[in-house]
């Protein structure tokens, strides 16, 4: 994990986006759940719940982007290649699952 003192501009932006996405996703889920309990048929509640869950799913992807940025800044090509390999395998896994549906 990078320390805050030696982060590049790109890493700072990625960290800020991740932090904002993190809190927005949880807040949206809390609001959505409250709306769904108060008014079960409400479209707003369902929309908030779906939006919050999708926002949450973006977090690990942002982390991978952040890791790639960190690897490039540190010129850590082992980390860079490992991250790309993980992305490739997970992409293949996702495509195989999608094809089997």
């Amino acid at each position, binding site marked *: *994990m*990078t*320390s*805050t003192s030696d982060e590049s501009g790109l890493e700072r932006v990625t*960290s800020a986006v*991740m*932090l904002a996405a*993190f809190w927005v*996703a*949880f807040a949206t*889920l*809390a609001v*959505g*759940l409250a709306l*769904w309990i108060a008014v079960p048929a409400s479209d707003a509640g*369902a929309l908030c*719940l*779906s939006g*919050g*869950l999708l926002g*949450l*799913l973006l*977090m*690990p*992807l942002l*982390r*991978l982007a952040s*890791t790639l940025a*960190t690897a490039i800044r540190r010129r*850590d090509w*082992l*980390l860079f290649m*490992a*991250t790309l*390999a*993980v992305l490739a*395998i*997970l992409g*293949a*896994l*996702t495509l*195989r*699952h*999608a094809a089997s*549906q």
Partner: protein
Amino acid sequence: MLGLGGGVLLVPFLNVALHFPLNVASGVSLMTVVATSSVVAHGTSGRGMVNLRLGMVLQIAAAAGGYFGGAYARRIPERALQMTFAVVTAAIAAMMLSRLERRNVILDTTSDPGRFGGRYYEDESGQEVVYRARRLPAAFGVSLVAGSISGLLGLGGAIVQVPALNAWCGIPLRAAAATSAVMIGITAAASAPLYYVRGDIVPPLAAAAVLGTFIGSRAGLSFGARARVKWLKVLMAAILLWVSGMYLFKTL
């Protein structure tokens, strides 16, 4: 606290206690794993607990294991798989209990952590500590097995990976748990959209589980940082034995 993602407890609870279908329990569990991963990544940011380099290298093996595990899942008898898993988790629990006092940290901060080691501030020691990764091929093999288990049994592989990294490969439990928690989030996020599209993630149920996980993960992170490693290992061993017993019971 232990980097397991919570699925190992949540899936049986939703499936057995609340009678939700297994695919719904697994879908909700994936969302809580992503939530735990996000909380841990956010909560440990800047403390050096997450070892990105080691985590990503091992993630290659885990992801490959998940790929092949999923491909061969139907060719291996489920009973044999469950029995093997029960024996392996019991063996790891016994190994953890036999090494309660071993901490894997070097208090001399001038020590070189090596290519896959790291350093972080540890509350228990009250100082920065260093650790070195040992037996990397074993760690790679364990991650491959952990990924395969994830693909074969639908469980997060962290239940095998975290204790094995700690006991065999010299990774302190806290670093292994934090690294694992962040990595399993990436794997879960790759599978979750498929569950979502199939309708296996019920939004209100998933939201309630995620919000509970959010509170629990933050509390666990805070408690785990202050708790003695010895007791974290005892807790981990207890969970392993519970899981082992559950699978043994299913096979009988």
